[in-house]
């Protein structure tokens, strides 16, 4: 990473027509990260034959979980070729800004020091390889959530580069993020003025609350359970009380489950609030004040009007942020994913204004 703070080049927010809040970039192999690892870890990689954290527990339906047309002609991997991603995503769809979320699973590694080395390497690789390739890319700081103290140090180090616009956590963690052990991460994000993005995936615990399912269809559908558990934990454990300025983006977890969750939580709060005497208002009020959710994967009810009813039930037009999830197979197309019933001011908010406000673009 450059020692000189790179300038953030961007056009006026008022001219934006589309912001993509969830795009994925991947190192093509461990070799791409080697220049960012110390001699000690380079030797470790070579000797151990380490090629990357984990394999897919659930084969994703398509290789690399990618659209079949997202394999670059260069021979690199989907999400591994910044030039191809620029053409196929940014230029093709007229996207003004896109947030990169590298899903490098270093939290699956039990060796904290190695995971931390990879964490730093991925961030430096993102800055050099992607953020430097086009001014429309924005980055997320990957952190090793299993080592909150060093994660916080990494946030402090990387956030000097303002092209990084959020801290990235994966939703399936070793423990709910509301637990006090994770506070250094939230504190560092707030100190850096960055939101935290909570993204689909992870490695800490089974996808469902009743254990490991068999199929990817279950993995993909049931991931919202993890989002629900995290949100309940973060609210009830007082994270938003301790960090009133904290912003939290729920990324790739859907949003149709939110009204029911807020109703359940508020109802229980009426009878059980004495357990959590640090909360000063209804749990749903914390959620609506501090959180946003990305649209992809769009819930697609048979009657699109039901989607509008869900948004109305959430009760805040500023809640949703558009995302494609490029280059993944479940990519949401900017011209088709939002049904026509989402129109006018609400559509403008979802595709541009809400992201501008939330991320401060």
């Amino acid at each position, binding site marked *: 990473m450059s020692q000189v703070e790179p300038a953030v080049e961007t056009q006026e927010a008022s001219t934006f027509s589309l912001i993509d809040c969830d795009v994925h970039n991947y190192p093509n192999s461990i070799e791409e990260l080697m220049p960012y690892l110390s001699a000690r870890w380079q030797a470790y990689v070579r000797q151990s034959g380490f090629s990357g954290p984990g394999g897919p527990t659930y084969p994703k339906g398509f290789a690399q979980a990618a659209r079949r047309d997202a394999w670059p002609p260069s021979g690199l991997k989907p999400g591994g070729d910044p030039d191809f991603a620029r053409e196929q995503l940014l230029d093709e769809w007229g996207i003004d800004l896109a947030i990169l979320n590298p899903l490098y699973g270093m939290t699956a590694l039990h060796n904290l020091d190695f995971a931390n080395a990879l964490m730093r390497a991925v961030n430096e690789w993102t800055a050099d390889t992607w953020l430097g390739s086009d001014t429309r890319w924005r980055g997320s700081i990957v952190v090793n959530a299993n080592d909150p103290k060093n994660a916080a140090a990494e946030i402090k180090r990387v956030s000097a580069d303002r092209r990084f616009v959020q801290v990235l956590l994966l939703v399936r963690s070793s423990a709910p993020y509301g637990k006090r052990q994770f506070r250094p991460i939230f504190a560092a994000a707030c100190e850096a003025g960055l939101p935290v993005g909570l993204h689909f995936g992870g490695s800490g615990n089974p996808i469902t609350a009743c254990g490991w399912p068999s199929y990817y269809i279950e993995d993909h559908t049931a991931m919202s359970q993890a989002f629900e558990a995290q949100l309940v934990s973060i609210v009830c454990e*007082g994270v938003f*009380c301790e960090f009133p300025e904290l912003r939290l983006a729920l990324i790739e977890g859907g949003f149709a489950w939110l009204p029911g969750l807020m109703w359940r939580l508020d109802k229980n709060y*009426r*009878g*059980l609030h*004495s357990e959590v*005497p640090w909360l000063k208002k*209804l749990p749903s009020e914390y959620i609506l004040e501090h959180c946003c959710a990305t649209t992809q994967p769009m819930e697609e009810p048979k009657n699109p009007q039901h989607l509008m009813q869900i948004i109305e039930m959430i009760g805040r037009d500023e809640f949703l942020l558009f995302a494609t999830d490029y280059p993944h197979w479940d990519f949401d197309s900017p011209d088709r994913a939002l049904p026509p019933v989402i129109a006018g001011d609400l559509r403008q908010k979802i595709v541009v204004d809400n992201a501008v406000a939330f991320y401060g673009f």
Partner: protein
Amino acid sequence: MASRGVDLGAVEAFADGDVQRVEAGGRGLVVVRRGDVFYVLRDICPHQGARLSDGQVTGQVAECSLGGEAVLARDGEILVCPWHGWQFDLCTGRSLVDGEKNRVRSYPVRIAAGRVLLELD
């Protein structure tokens, strides 16, 4: 001129700290005695209709910072619904959460000649 009030019974009929149901004026009421003070509320939770007289008297956990010492305040002044745990201020009948919207009617009482008298409008 003061009203005669509806006689709820002798003072001695209500043990200190007890939660008791009585019928008066065609209404079910819950009576809670705390020393010389009597609280009377309608005996029906505005949430789902449980009898509050099946509930428990407790206090209010005072608001505190995260990880701070949670202190029980106003011990004896809060009635907890037996079904979903909604908590009502015995003095006002208001729920401790959303008390403006969620409240159970409370009634003034007075003691005269060893009797507990309910003041009805």
